[in-house]
C-alpha cells in the first residue's frame, strides 16, 4: 500500500507539470491516468525496493551527482582540446574490468556515467565484466580506479 502511494505521488507530480495548472478536473483525470499507468508498469518499479530511500543513501547520491558533473566538465575540455589540435594524438584502447558492485541498478548507473563522460565509452556489459573503449591511454587509469565506483559501493552498503 505504501509503495502504491509513493508511486502515485511521483506520477501525479509529473502529470501536474505536464498539465501546467491545478484544478479539480485535472486532478481527477490525473489520478485515473496514474492508476492506469501503475497497473501497466507493475513489474518495473526498481527504485521502490525496500530501504532505498534512507537518508544516508540520498546524501551519497547527491555527492555522486556533484562529482559526476565536475568530471564531465573536466573531461569535456580535455576532449575538446584533442579535437581542436592540429594533429589529433589519439590512441584508442579497449579495457576489460570487473566491478565489485552487486545490484543491477548500480551497475547500470556506473556504465551510464562512464558513457556520459566524454573520452570513455562502455561498449559491453555482461554481468560484472565491463568492456570500455578509451580515447587515450591516459584515461585507462581513470577508469580502473574511478571515483564513481567508490561512491556507489558506499551507496550499496
Amino acid at each position, binding site marked *: 500500500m505504501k509503495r502504491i502511494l509513493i508511486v502515485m505521488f511521483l506520477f501525479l507530480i*509529473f502529470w501536474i*507539470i*505536464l498539465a*501546467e495548472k491545478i484544478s479539480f478536473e485535472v486532478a481527477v483525470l490525473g489520478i485515473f491516468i496514474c492508476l492506469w499507468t501503475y497497473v501497466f508498469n507493475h513489474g518495473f518499479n526498481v527504485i521502490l525496493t525496500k530501504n532505498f530511500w534512507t537518508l544516508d543513501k540520498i546524501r551519497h547520491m547527491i555527492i555522486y551527482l556533484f562529482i559526476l558533473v565536475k568530471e*564531465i*566538465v573536466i573531461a*569535456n575540455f580535455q*576532449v*575538446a582540446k584533442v*579535437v*581542436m589540435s592540429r594533429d*589529433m594524438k*589519439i590512441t*584508442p584502447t579497449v579495457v576489460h574490468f570487473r566491478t565489485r558492485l552487486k545490484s543491477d541498478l548500480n551497475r547500470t548507473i556506473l*556504465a*551510464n*556515467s562512464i*558513457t*556520459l*563522460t*566524454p*573520452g570513455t*565509452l*562502455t*561498449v*559491453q556489459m555482461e554481468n560484472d565484466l565491463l*568492456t570500455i*573503449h578509451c*580515447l587515450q591511454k591516459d584515461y585507462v587509469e581513470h577508469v580502473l580506479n574511478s571515483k564513481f565506483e567508490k561512491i556507489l559501493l558506499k551507496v550499496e552498503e
Partner: protein
Amino acid sequence: MKLMLIAIFLLGGLFFFSVGTIGLLRFPDLFTRAHSAAKCDTLGAVLCLIALMMHSGINYSSVKLLLVLIFLWVTNPTATHLIVKAVFVKKDKHKKIDGVR
C-alpha cells in the same frame, strides 16, 4: 548581469556543439566518433537548456525543460551504448569466424 550569465551559458553550449560536430567530421572510425557525439549530448545541450531556464525564470516551462534535461542525460548514453554495442558484437563475430578458419 542576468543577460551576461545567459550569454555565457548559451555561447558555451554553442561552442561545445560546434566542437562535437567538428569531431564527428574529423575522427577516423565509429568508436572515436561516438566520443565526440557524447560531448554534444552532455555539455552542449545541458548548457543551452540551463541558459533557457534562466531566461524563463521559475515557472512550469522551466520545470519542463528540466525534465527534458534529465531525460536527455538518462537516454543519450543508453542510445550511444546500444549503437556502439551493435557494431562491436558484429566485429567480434568476424574475429571469431576468422579464428575458426
